[in-house]
């Protein structure tokens, strides 16, 4: 926002101390942006983050993606703002728009309504919202989902647990996390059918102290001997590593979102990696080329899985492809399991590789959410599965061979029977 323009506006309105920078967008007639850029035109994109870039989880991963896009495209100029509060999102978006930014990425589900309102107020700008379901002609949505990776982690966890109890530290029990827990459980029970997954919800995305207490409860009070988590700090891993150093007891753990191997070299087995750069580069290149404009985003919804390269198995770096810590890889080579699809006896490592490759196939030769599966509706409000409504507590049975669709996964509100979770 140029101070000269503000000064003129201020003088014009005659209201002391109040300028109208934020109102400018409202008067601008909708015009087509994107496209026609040609040589020399710069595209400016801004990212609105919900947490600190240093969280080493969600926001950190998005920022890595932003930088990757920035380094790839010479015509791109980017900026990011962290720790934006939900009720203040629109004000922050306006600040960027006043600075001439063309594309705004908002990277929290909580920003959905504010992003939508901004897209209405600024029809000449382009918005992309991560993880939501509201779209507009100038607002698309995108998401990279980890459920297949959690399933692969589950195969490993199932082989590693001796007590048959696996602990899961969950930030919030929302559909995304419920889906991850279920996928993880499907993997575990495939190699270890009687195992249980104990879930503790901590109520924060970003709370190292709570995650640590929850992990300690799972291990020390409930007897879990493998851990996984959905929370934005490496706390759970640090807990397992200290536990190993203090007591000599190994609690294998799976890294989440960003590569967290360094925090627990003795205990990290593998984990989930997200490369948001894949999605950001795709979106921005299309905006620059004029394929995405402020008129045609109504149906643009990215749902990127393992085959897209946006997510992967790993914990060491963003370049990991099916990475498993050497220490555990060797163990998996010595474990004999049955491929339940073919009935063959193979090693666990072979099974993991086989499933990984099957899910890489764009036609999805394999998907973890395939019947038979059974569980109970958990959400107070109930929910739909395969087009049928279930109330809280109703039992759900997915028949053999039936695969859940996008909507079933997207709004998943039920837990499998082997999950031990608050009612």
């Amino acid at each position, binding site marked *: 926002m140029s101070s000269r323009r503000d000064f003129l506006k201020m003088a014009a309105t005659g209201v002391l101390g109040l300028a109208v920078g934020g109102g400018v967008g409202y008067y601008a007639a909708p015009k087509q942006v994107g496209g026609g850029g040609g040589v020399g035109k710069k595209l400016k994109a801004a990212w609105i983050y919900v947490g*600190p870039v*240093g*969280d*080493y989880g969600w926001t*950190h991963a998005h920022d890595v993606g932003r930088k990757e896009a920035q380094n790839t495209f010479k015509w791109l100029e980017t900026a990011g703002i962290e*720790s934006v509060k939900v009720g203040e999102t629109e004000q922050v978006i306006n600040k960027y728009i006043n600075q001439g930014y063309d594309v705004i990425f908002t990277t929290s589900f909580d920003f959905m309504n504010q992003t939508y309102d901004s897209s209405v107020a600024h029809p000449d700008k382009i918005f992309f919202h991560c993880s939501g379901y509201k779209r507009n002609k100038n607002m698309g949505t995108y998401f990279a989902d980890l459920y297949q990776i959690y399933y692969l982690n589950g195969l490993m966890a199932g082989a590693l647990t001796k007590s048959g109890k696996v602990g899961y530290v969950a930030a919030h029990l929302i559909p995304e996390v419920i889906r991850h827990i279920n996928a993880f459980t499907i993997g575990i029970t495939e190699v270890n059918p009687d195992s249980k997954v*104990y*879930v*503790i*919800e*901590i*109520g924060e995305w*970003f709370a*190292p*102290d709570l995650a*640590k*207490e*929850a992990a*300690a*409860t799972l291990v*020390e*009070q*409930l007897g879990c001997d493998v851990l996984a988590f959905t929370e934005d*700090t*490496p*706390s759970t891993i*640090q807990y397992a590593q*200290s536990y190993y150093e*203090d007591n000599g007891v190994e609690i294998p753990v799976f890294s989440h979102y960003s590569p967290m191997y*360094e*925090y627990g070299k003795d205990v990290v087995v593998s984990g989930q990696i997200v490369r948001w750069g894949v999605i950001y580069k795709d979106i921005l290149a299309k905006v620059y080329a004029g394929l995405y404009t402020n008129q045609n985003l109504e149906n643009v919804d990215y749902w990127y899985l393992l085959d897209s390269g946006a997510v992967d198995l790993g914990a060491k770096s963003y370049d990991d492809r099916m990475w498993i810590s050497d220490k555990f890889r060797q163990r998996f080579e010595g474990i004999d399991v049955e491929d339940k699809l073919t009935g063959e006896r193979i090693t666990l490592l072979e099974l993991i590789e086989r499933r990984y490759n099957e899910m890489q196939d764009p036609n999805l030769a394999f998907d973890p959410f395939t019947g038979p599966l059974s569980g109970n509706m958990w959400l107070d409000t109930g929910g739909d599965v395969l087009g049928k409504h279930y109330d809280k507590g109703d039992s759900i049975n997915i028949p053999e061979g039936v695969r859940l669709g996008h909507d079933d996964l997207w709004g998943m509100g039920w837990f499998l029977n082997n999950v*031990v*979770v*608050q*009612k």
Partner: protein
Amino acid sequence: MVNYLIEIISRIIVASTPLYIATLGELYTERSGVINLGVEGLFVLGASTAFTITILTENLYIAMLATLILGFIVGGIHGFITAYLKGREILSGLAVTLFSYGLASIVGRPYVGLSLPVRLNLTANYHIILLLIILSSIVSWIILFKLKAGVIIRASGEDPSSAFVMGINVDKVRMLTTMIGSGLATVAGAIYTLGYIQVWTEGAGAGWGWIAIANVIVSLWNPLLTPVFSLLYGGVNSMVWMLQLPPYNVSPYLLGTTPYLTTLITLLIIVATPIRKHVRPPSALGIKFEREERTI
């Protein structure tokens, strides 16, 4: 079974130690007649600076020492305003808290999420820590009730005018106890990050200072009682997690309020039952010691 108990006991002790230290500090401050609401911010500031300095120097002792000194300085601002300038101590304390929140965020920000190069291993030494907690509470009791230093501190908090007549420099005593309390609050914050959570994030340690201030009342301003509620609080904080799972099924969001509910109910029990007859805060607590005219 024995292992299981030891694990739980050590966990409770580790969780309680920072709270105990901050409480003990504030107890000295309040015994001299000053309420320091800055303890909340100083705890957070200590958490952040100790983390940053440990990352930079890879030395826990330098970090703790620097944190202590920073506590003296920032807490000294509150001491100076209340003791010498006779300012409103509630506001001054809140201001110090806000200022410290801000400083903590600026100091820690470049290092957020980094891994500590060295950590303070409290879990392995829980028995030594328990011993230190008990010893320090006994020593504090002796200082406050058996030694001359304690008489001076308590006189400033009970009857500053008489203390002044007896030749005690009330302003100076209050300034010093506030600095001691503040230094202990920052060190408590340091132990919280270095020994307990072992990472730092924006806002790490927030809320503990308030509990420490409440804990002084719950301990009836008696250092011998401070370990009791600290350990009880640490215990509740560590043990409630179980209750969200079957068969208990208590909402984790309601469980999250137990620390505060416990504190509120304990305070209420103290003021609303016959126990209150034994509660006697320092008579001049929160009351400014002013004279009409002074020359320096």
